[in-house]
């Protein structure tokens, strides 16, 4: 396992815990409570920011450790990592497509969507983008075996 793969596993673990925490909040409180419950909104935004900070901290700490240990990113790593943005873009576009279809089918008669959904769409796009930064790295290395 290369240092890049190890880093991707850490990122994936953070991403999964982060996703589960956000999903659990909306399942426990109910998505519609988001409009009326200020406490829930603050918790959701705090979770969102905390996940990003945890991910950035992990990248910083592992990056410093790799530099200290003299770990290099060679030409093969760079070639493999060039594929990662493709996986990220595909995952984000798929996520947005699912939101579009589900919301259109669910709220077509009302002609409008509850205010919570723009937030959820934004949260999910960022979370999926970050999670697939790590998952995409693991997939790219797996395909290069």
């Amino acid at each position, binding site marked *: 396992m*290369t240092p890049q793969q190890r880093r991707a596993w850490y990122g994936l673990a953070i991403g999964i815990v982060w996703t589960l925490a956000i999903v659990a909040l909306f399942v426990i409180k109910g998505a519609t409570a988001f409009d009326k419950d200020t406490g829930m909104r603050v918790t959701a935004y705090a979770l969102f920011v905390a996940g990003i900070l945890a991910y950035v901290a992990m990248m910083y700490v592992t990056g410093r450790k790799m530099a200290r240990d003299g770990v*290099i990113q*060679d*030409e*093969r*790593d760079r070639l493999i990592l060039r594929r990662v943005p493709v996986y990220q873009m595909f995952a984000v576009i798929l996520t947005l497509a699912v939101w579009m279809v589900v919301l259109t089918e669910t709220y077509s008669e009302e002609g409008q969507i509850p205010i919570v959904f723009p937030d959820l769409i934004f949260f999910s796009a960022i979370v999926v983008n970050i999670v697939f930064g790590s998952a995409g790295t693991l997939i790219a290395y797996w395909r*290069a*075996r």
Partner: protein
Amino acid sequence: MGTDEVKNRIRRLRFEHGEVTQEELARRVGCTRQAIIALEQGKYLPSVALAFRIARTFGVTVEDVFQYENDK
């Protein structure tokens, strides 16, 4: 055009130079051990610069390390 294939003698050259480890070779040529493994297994083609660094490490020419084959 035919099918291109590039084989290499890195494993043999490591053996002939006193069982240089993959880790040591990687350190000398400035790549990861995983890249040396992939090269030896024929799953990765190096850049021209890396091919030269590997050849010079063993004191041979690039063509002594890498052999181009075309079935045409």
